[in-house]
């Protein structure tokens, strides 16, 4: 007849704990990636993420961890690693991506991608970060 109070209270506590954990995990967010270089890409992905943010890539491209704006101008870069071609012209290798970042108009004349005056080391770091995304 009477409620199994202890059972219910345990249920409540479990529910609360689960809800708290769920909310917590949901917002843990994208931490910095595994700093180990991926697939022979020379560069530091942690510094790369910071560079991507500082240069403002996110206002045109959707990039996990670098979400700045709409990401509706350029292609999303979250699965760059799986892409066969980049810029519609070059096979997807880290070096080619670096080339494209350094001189977009030279690689792909007529593209709206501007020359953002990135230096070589920075570009390598950025590519290293981009290659850590996707396929995880």
């Amino acid at each position, binding site marked *: 007849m009477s409620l199994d109070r202890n059972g219910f209270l345990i249920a409540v506590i479990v529910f609360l704990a689960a809800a708290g954990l769920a909310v917590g995990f949901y917002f843990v967010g994208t931490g910095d990636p595994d700093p180990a270089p991926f697939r022979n890409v020379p560069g530091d992905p942690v510094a790369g993420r910071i560079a991507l943010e500082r*240069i403002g890539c996110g*206002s045109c491209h959707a990039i996990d961890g670098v979400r700045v*704006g709409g990401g509706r*101008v350029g292609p999303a870069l979250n699965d760059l690693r799986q892409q066969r071609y980049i810029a519609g012209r070059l096979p997807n290798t880290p070096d080619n991506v670096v080339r494209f970042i350094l001189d977009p108009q030279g690689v792909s004349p007529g593209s709206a991608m*501007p020359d953002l005056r990135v230096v070589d080391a920075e570009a390598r770091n950025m590519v290293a970060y981009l290659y850590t995304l996707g396929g995880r």
Partner: protein
Amino acid sequence: MPVLSHVPNARRWVPVTVVVAALLAGCEMPLALAPRGPAAAEIASIWWILFWIAVPVSVIVFSLLGIAIVRARAIAREQDEHDEHDVRVAERLRETGADVGLPEASRPARVSWLEGRTTGFVIIGGGVIPTLILIFTTVMTLQGLAVFDTAPEDVAYSVTARGHMFWWQFEYPDHGVVTANEMHVPVGRSVRVELESADVIHSFWVPQLHGKIEMIPGKTNVIHIQADEAGTYFGKCAEFCGQQHANMEFLVIAQEEAEFESWLEAQAADAPEPTDELAQRGRDVFVDSQCALCHTIRGVNQAAPGVAPDLTHLATRRTLAARTLPNVRGNLGGWILDPQGIKPGSRMPAVNLSSDEFLALLEYLDGLR
């Protein structure tokens, strides 16, 4: 209406880390309690007095309640058993599952000292003492008001701040300077700020310098602010003004007076002539496209006043779109091409440009120093 959309979540790394630095410098004090100007300092001092009144008042009230419960329950336990009413109630309430201190064996009845003095207790504790405290806080408030009502004597500069949906225009009428989303002031000098609105009600708030005063259409409110330290201060629209209220922020940049004067001089000049060919083409794109209908670049065109930010010295500003984005080349490009993706509901429409036109325009705007 999209339920989920991409949100302008730029700016997590705005290079203007001074805000954070200021936070740390203020001994972890939140902005409003780390004042950097006389007005905010006056307010902070009022707060600390109120706070040190509030703490003991709360503690005393909570203690009285706690003592009342503990004492009265102790008396109930010792209650003379022939207080039949209490026994009856207690027994009945125990049946409902309540935790009741049942009266025990016969003992002399104990009466609370408050019995028979309750009216005095209520009137003195709840009426007289609060009245005395409130007289004190009222006098303090009126004194504070008097401070704010007195205009400083040596007002060095005058700025007209105008709120728009969802950006700020700052005009220095004596110097012919119009800029946006960034107000420069000289350190240690009192600046008169006239607050106006172009559309709905906004509210001008720089927590470290001054409390908020609203910007109301058809009305001009005047405040005086003064920054005692050089630095960059966070400002925010505080009155809900529409969809992008959250992204209507600005910076107050306090500089040494000489530096400030040279800033004024530079800002008063016309826009620099583009030197390279690409930028020159960009200027033509600007003039021939929709951009020039709303944005003015002094020396190049004159758009309808007050519709959109003046871009004459755009590249000298720290942020774009009312502190939505750090003002760097990549963000400037993204903002030109997709303002509604970055700041949904902002008044800037997307402009259709070919990639050539876009690259030229970006080159030009990025060079407007």
